[in-house]
């Protein structure tokens, strides 16, 4: 085992991890406003990718136009989900909302299967498959692009949460009743968080669709994305980024050592171990907010 190989594993792991972060950012956005992990984020990601395909391959639009247009459509869909489904549940126990998101995920998967079928399709972003050489290191270009998108979204959302609208969203996450009492529209805020998460789903769907093709398997990203979000602390965008890098590195380096021992499949085991250990040892994750004891 030489150092060049090890750093190559670590760097590519970190880049893949940032792609999980991309997914996790969507989860965090919704968690911040609703205190519920959105189990439908995988379904949304898949729908995002299919909408891009429908606009580009099927309707013939160029990708540079299809992607922003898909983002607009998904933004509307996110608002629609709040209006049609979530609003009725405001004030109900969180478990009900959680079950609703699960139902929504199943619905989105069923719908995409019915409309677009089960065969895998590909999104051609035009990113070269030739690896990039960084000194002696091989690096995947598409992963680098995806990681760049994740970091850009991270910066954008960090700034957003300092704007007045962003502060109102954080207020909603803290206390619905107090928000209503000062005239904040909780419904609108929750809708906005779903809309933003749906836009993130387009970005996630396009990048991952380019890497592994667009089919039902895209929705399974939920497992890794959720692990990253939990490790990061569920309500922390910074946590999603840091945890993504950590999980990506552990997974890639760890699998290299473990796979020969267990005969493959150790990636899933590593992810599962991280999720379970986080919940057991540090339930609020790396950067999650603690509930403050009242004075």
């Amino acid at each position, binding site marked *: 085992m030489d150092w060049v190989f090890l750093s190559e594993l670590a760097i590519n792991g970190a880049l893949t991890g940032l792609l999980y972060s991309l997914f996790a950012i969507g989860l965090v956005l919704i968690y911040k406003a609703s205190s519920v992990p959105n189990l439908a984020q995988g379904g949304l990601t898949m729908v995002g990718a299919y909408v891009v395909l429908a606009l580009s391959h099927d309707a013939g639009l160029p990708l540079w136009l299809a992607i922003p247009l898909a983002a607009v459509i998904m933004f509307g869909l996110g608002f629609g989900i709040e209006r049609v489904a979530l609003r009725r549940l405001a004030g109900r126990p969180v478990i009900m909302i959680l079950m609703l998101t699960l139902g929504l995920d199943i619905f989105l998967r069923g719908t995409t299967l019915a409309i677009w079928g089960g065969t895998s399709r590909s999104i051609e972003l035009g990113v070269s498959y030739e690896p990039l050489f960084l000194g002696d290191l091989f690096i995947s270009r598409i992963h680098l692009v995806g990681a760049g998108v994740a970091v850009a979204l991270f910066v954008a959302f960090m700034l957003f949460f300092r704007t007045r609208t962003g*502060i109102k969203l954080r*207020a909603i996450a803290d206390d619905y*009743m*107090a928000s209503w009492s000062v*005239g904040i529209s909780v419904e609108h805020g929750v809708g906005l968080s779903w809309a933003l998460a749906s836009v993130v789903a387009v970005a996630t769907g396009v990048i991952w669709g380019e890497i592994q093709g667009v089919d039902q398997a895209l929705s399974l990203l939920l497992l890794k994305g959720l692990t990253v979000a939990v490790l990061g602390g569920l309500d922390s965008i910074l946590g999603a980024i840091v945890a993504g890098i950590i999980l990506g590195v552990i997974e890639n380096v760890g699998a290299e050592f473990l796979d020969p021992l267990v005969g493959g499949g150790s990636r899933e085991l590593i992810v599962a171990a991280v999720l379970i250990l986080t919940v057991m040892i540090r339930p609020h994750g790396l950067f999650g907010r603690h509930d403050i004891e009242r004075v």
Partner: protein
Amino acid sequence: MQEKAEAAPILSMNSVEVLYDNIMLAIKGVSIQVPTGEMIALLGSNGAGKSTTLKAISGLLKAERGRISRGEIAFQGTDITEVLAQNRVGMGICHVIEGRRVFEHLTPDENLTAAAPRGMSRSALNAEKEKIYNYFPRLAERRNSQAGYLSGGEQQMLAIGRALVTQPSLLMLDEPSLGLAPFLVEEIFGILQKINREEGMSVLLVEQNALAALEIVSQGYLIENGRVVMHGTAEALKSNSDIQEFYLGGGEGTNFHNVKHYSRRKRWLS
């Protein structure tokens, strides 16, 4: 009761009944008037229906599956019974809810920003904040720390400041003295009085601490079991023997009364 002619009331509540979950009748025909620019107290023990009365006025009832089943509420002459809570804030009614409830993970400064009405310019918001920090200098010192770690008194000040950002013409406060040391209660009530005088803001103050409340208001209502049982000037109430016995700490039995209601009410809060 006094019958002298006054300026048109900013708030007029007429025989209002409130039902929770369509079965629990929490207030049973409450009528209250808040004359424009005055401070009015709503007194009563735990479970009497004070908070429910405020929620009926602010519209927050809906969030607790409550509704007005009879009567009407007029604000500045307009019937608001069907108006959404967030729109009532826009009309000038702001409710500082029970238990302080600041946005704990935000700074005090962000708490104030969060309450900014739609369309308030940045400079107007900053001017508003400075005014609030002038009223509550303690908040100014801690404007960038995390609100969840402020002391109880500071949190109550922040909750009031946050309400002021919405620029209410009627400010309603639900037991702002709860759990605070007497000197803090005095400080906060003093500031409320100042705001009332300087801005002409009408105030509806819900309190169990009748002694402190009657010092700063002009009139008070006493509510028991969902009904108004007494109404008069602060002076008249202070000298009333029942009030003295039960609410100004003069007689026996007060504690038992409160304990019984308290345990009943805790169920709803959990």
